[in-house]
């Protein structure tokens, strides 16, 4: 399968959106484009597994390599492994759902959809890149539209949030580019941006120790590494619904993927050197994020803070440096992406009807909007790690992987992470109990339930969540070989 399709289709869609004449056309083109993209992502999984089953042993499949700037050894090198494939599927699901929930955006619809699709293209490009220069290029494409999305279509103190988000993410990017250049020049005689080449060559331990923090913190900012997480609550709460979905569902995953693929994989000794720091910071993020969530009364703030807690599991899994934990980290990325996108979608649906996001101003909405509230239930239950949904599988995999480190430090970190499942249950049930249950407030008695596009968006995401939750072996089989390669590199085999 030709991977160029994955970035070509969004590009075409984006151009199509720009050329279309009216809102109706914009919507249909965006919808058709993202639906096709989902089909493409599913086909990619099918062909990928088929190749693997047929005995393809290469680390990356469907590779293509074009010289982009030969004198500096920059190549347009793309290819995917199981980890990238699962992230692409996540992106495709979230994008389609995001396009559907934005159906009623009236203000500058064309530009809105253009930016959404552009952002998606950045994410696809990021996940398939095997050249750090190209990867960085796509990372930036995925950042800038967010500033405009929040600044233009946002709500609340949107300028502040947009600035904060853009500045913090740009800080992250600048650290990343320093780290990338460090690797480029630290790779001895053979300067290279190519992930495969860099991984084979082996960067000297001194360089790794110096530049690992740059890359890890840089990507960590994207995935809400404590204490660089404060863009998350403000950014999410000010963004329009689809913006929040993309931000939490895709952008934060760019960071996690980068931490894994670029920082940890290319600089394994650096990762070992700093793993205890990663574990400390991520355990803090997990429990502290969960406790901070308890005090949030705005639904979006609540979900944003819980994202900090949940993304802590991603970093914890990476920091634990065992195969199972890394597999769990990737699973958690997929799971959290779907779950939190669903959560933001449903918050958007509620907000559109009640015009408030304050938890204690709502009550008993189950009576008037049973579908929406059921979706809220499902998102909540997935968030608190109920079996049958993806969150459980991912968290348990992280726990099992973490526990394999036999010393007290790792044990305590794991127990701290486990404790968050109780705290999560507290804030999720409190929110659900207040919003969905209890006697209904009179002002809300006339509200209508979700419309077809919202229902479709929710169902798409729920299918993803439940499929992973019920048949985790599908995802596990996809991710595991990739995680194994990374792990072998770390353990020096």
């Amino acid at each position, binding site marked *: 399968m030709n991977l160029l399709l994955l970035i070509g289709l969004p590009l075409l869609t984006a151009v199509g959106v720009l050329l279309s004449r009216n809102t109706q056309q914009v919507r249909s083109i965006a919808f058709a484009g993202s639906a096709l993209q989902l089909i493409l992502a599913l086909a990619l999984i099918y062909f990928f597994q088929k190749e693997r089953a047929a005995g393809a042993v290469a680390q990356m499949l469907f590779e293509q390599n074009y010289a982009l700037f030969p004198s500096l050894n920059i190549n347009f090198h793309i290819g995917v492994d199981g980890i990238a494939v699962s992230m692409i599927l996540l992106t495709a699901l979230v994008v389609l759902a995001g396009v559907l929930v934005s159906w009623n955006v009236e203000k500058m619809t064309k530009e809105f959809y253009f930016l959404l699709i552009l952002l998606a293209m950045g994410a696809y490009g990021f996940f398939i890149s095997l050249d750090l220069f190209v990867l960085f290029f796509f990372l930036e494409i995925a950042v800038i539209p967010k500033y405009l999305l929040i600044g233009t279509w946002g709500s609340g103190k949107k300028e502040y949030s947009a600035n904060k988000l853009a500045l*913090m993410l740009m800080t992250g990017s600048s650290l990343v580019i320093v780290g990338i250049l460090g690797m480029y020049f630290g790779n001895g005689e053979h300067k290279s941006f190519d992930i495969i080449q860099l991984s084979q060559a082996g960067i000297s331990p001194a360089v790794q120790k110096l530049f690992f923090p740059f890359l890890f913190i840089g990507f960590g900012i994207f995935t809400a590494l404590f204490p660089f997480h404060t863009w998350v609550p403000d950014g999410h709460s000010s963004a329009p619904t689809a913006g929040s979905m993309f931000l939490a569902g895709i952008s934060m995953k760019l960071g996690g993927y980068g931490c894994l693929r670029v920082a940890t994989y290319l600089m394994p000794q650096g990762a070992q050197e700093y793993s205890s720091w990663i574990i400390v910071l991520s355990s803090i993020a997990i429990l502290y994020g969960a406790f*901070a969530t308890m005090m949030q009364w705005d639904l979006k703030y609540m979900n944003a803070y819980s994202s900090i807690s949940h993304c802590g599991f991603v970093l914890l899994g990476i920091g634990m440096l065992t195969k199972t934990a890394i597999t769990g980290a990737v699973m958690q990325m997929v799971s959290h992406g779907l779950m939190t996108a669903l959560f933001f979608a449903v918050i958007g649906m509620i907000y559109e009807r009640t015009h408030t996001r304050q938890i204690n101003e709502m009550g008993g909405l189950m009576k008037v909007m049973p579908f929406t509230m059921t979706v809220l239930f499902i998102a909540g239950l997935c968030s608190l790690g*109920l*079996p049958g949904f993806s969150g459980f599988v991912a968290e348990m995999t992280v726990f099992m992987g973490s526990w394999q480190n036999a010393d007290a430090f790792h044990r305590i970190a794991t127990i701290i992470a486990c404790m968050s499942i109780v705290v999560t249950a507290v804030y999720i049930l409190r929110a659900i109990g207040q919003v969905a*249950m209890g006697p209904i407030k009179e002002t809300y008695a006339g509200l209508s339930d979700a419309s077809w596009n919202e229902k479709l968006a929710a169902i798409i995401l729920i299918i993803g969540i439940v499929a992973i939750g019920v048949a985790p072996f599908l995802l596990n089989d996809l991710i*595991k070989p990739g995680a194994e390669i990374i792990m072998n590199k770390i353990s020096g085999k």
Partner: protein
Amino acid sequence: MPNAINIALIPLLPLAGFLLLGLFGKKIFKNSAGIIGTLILLISAGLAIYTAYGYFFDYGKVNDVYQKLIPLKYTWLEFSKDVSIDMGIILDPISAMMIVVVTFVSLMVHIYSLGYMKGEERYSTYYAYLSLFTFSMLGLVLSSNIFQIYIFWELVGVSSFLLIGFYYDRPSAVAASKKAFIVTRFADLGFLIGILVLSFYSGTLDFNTLIQKLTSPESSELKTAIASSFLGVSALTWGLTLVFIGGAGKSAMFPLHIWLPDAMEGPTPVSALIHAATMVVAGVYLVARLFPVFALSAPDALSIVANVGAISALFAAIIACTQTDIKRVLAYSTMSQIGYMMFALGVSKYGGEDGLGYTASMFHLFTHAMFKALLFLGAGAVIHYVHSNDMKDMGGLRKHLPITHITFLLACLSIAGFPLLAGFFSKEEILLAAYQHNAVIYWIALITSGLTAFYMFRLYFSIFWNKAYHAHGEHHGDGGVAMMLPLLLLAAGAVFAGYIPFGHFVSTDGKPLESEFHLSFSIAPVALGLIGILTAMWLYKNENEKPAKLAASLSGLYKSAYHKFYIDELYLFVTKKVLFNLVARPAAWFDKTVVDGLVNFTGNTTQDISERIKGIQSGKVQQYAIYFLVSAVVLALLFIYVWKG
């Protein structure tokens, strides 16, 4: 050999029912949901009985020993070669017994609800939830993998949450459902860490392998697990104790019991199914499932089980004597009876005659399911009639509800250990096991059995005798066939279940256990039971001042028992005051001011500095020219005199 598909269908049929009713119930099966759910469960129950029959009488026994069969195993999530979560089915005496109990009681509740829940707005949702619960509970008892049991453990937790909060527009129901979920979730944290510990030391998650590795004295896994210790206690004891904490949470053992009384906010049939007969005994079942490891390798953990069980039994019995909400009385009685089962396991040893406690515990679980479900369903009929939960609103109902009255009486006699009824046999066995192994627990158990008789008959007399009942509103008597049939069937169980020679089927090592009966031993408990019944009769048969006087004379004890020994308040203090105000609030504050403050500080400082130096950019061309000129001159001088060459 067992037919794996048949057995798999036992839980899967209710799952199908849940999906069918959950997805299409509101529109398509609005009125037929109950019938569909009941029929599905009827098939499931039939398969369960067929399976159990086949296991006990046909293929289960090899060389006179009941085997643990794994007819089905499917790798669900593989962590490494040996460690994986499998979805499997285990068939051994206790799981075969449990599927019968679960499907039978669930079927009774399904039928009963046809009458009880009729006309309810969310009728189909109710049946969907019931099916979900039945599926989860069956999956739990059939689990062949410790992680699988955890998965279904959580699922029964959420079904219980959904059903307690079924009347979601009542704030008390919402609060109760949240409380139930969070308290059990807290206990599950222990369970989860326990699983991690056990799996780490045994290198597997599979029950059979795990038990084998952690019990055979030669195995290296066992040696490491005992040798490595934390705070002076071996890792194995830690692991099992943590797993037991999970069990204690689900089984409402002291001090994790606080959710159970509140859980009575759910519809009464649900209380009968989940909070009396099935889900709350999951903890007992879990300990029984891991019993060989407890008994052979970690006797310390087992003694914790025994002590917690005994304390809970007595503690709950005392509280039950003071409560006035009939469902709460039953809830505390459930807790007390589960305490019985727990300490019976706790005092038991592995193998032969010494394993009597294990058999007795399972036996009591079986009979308790019958009479406690019956009591709840009877209470449901009463509540249905008087529209109140409070025993002060009741009295003299024996003429109004004749069938309910008779069946309720039988159940009360059975739980009080009246000779020749089901409860008598199982309770005697438990007492005997306690007598043989632990004197203190024996005395606690004996006192509790007297108290049990007292509070059950206090309940019975207050509902059916005492003052005369003046019916108002509509009169519908006992309710329809749908409600009476389960009562009668369960009453038959409560009377005759005791005659099953349980030791023949369920024992620690699978070999039949001949339990002999000592008439002389039974004298004490039966006498105590009778004293309890007679005291209750003296106090509550007719309306009088005696109970109030008694309460006044015992004011301190009565008051604290009435307030459930202030455990709820203690929890509220810890969660609200300590966790909420001392942890969560500072965390949020820290995030807002310190972490976010730093970010804003960086931004603001940058802005400040640029504010200060922006005057340089004055817009005056000639000023710029001077800057340029001066800088050029300075640079030139520097190049000439400082940076030479």
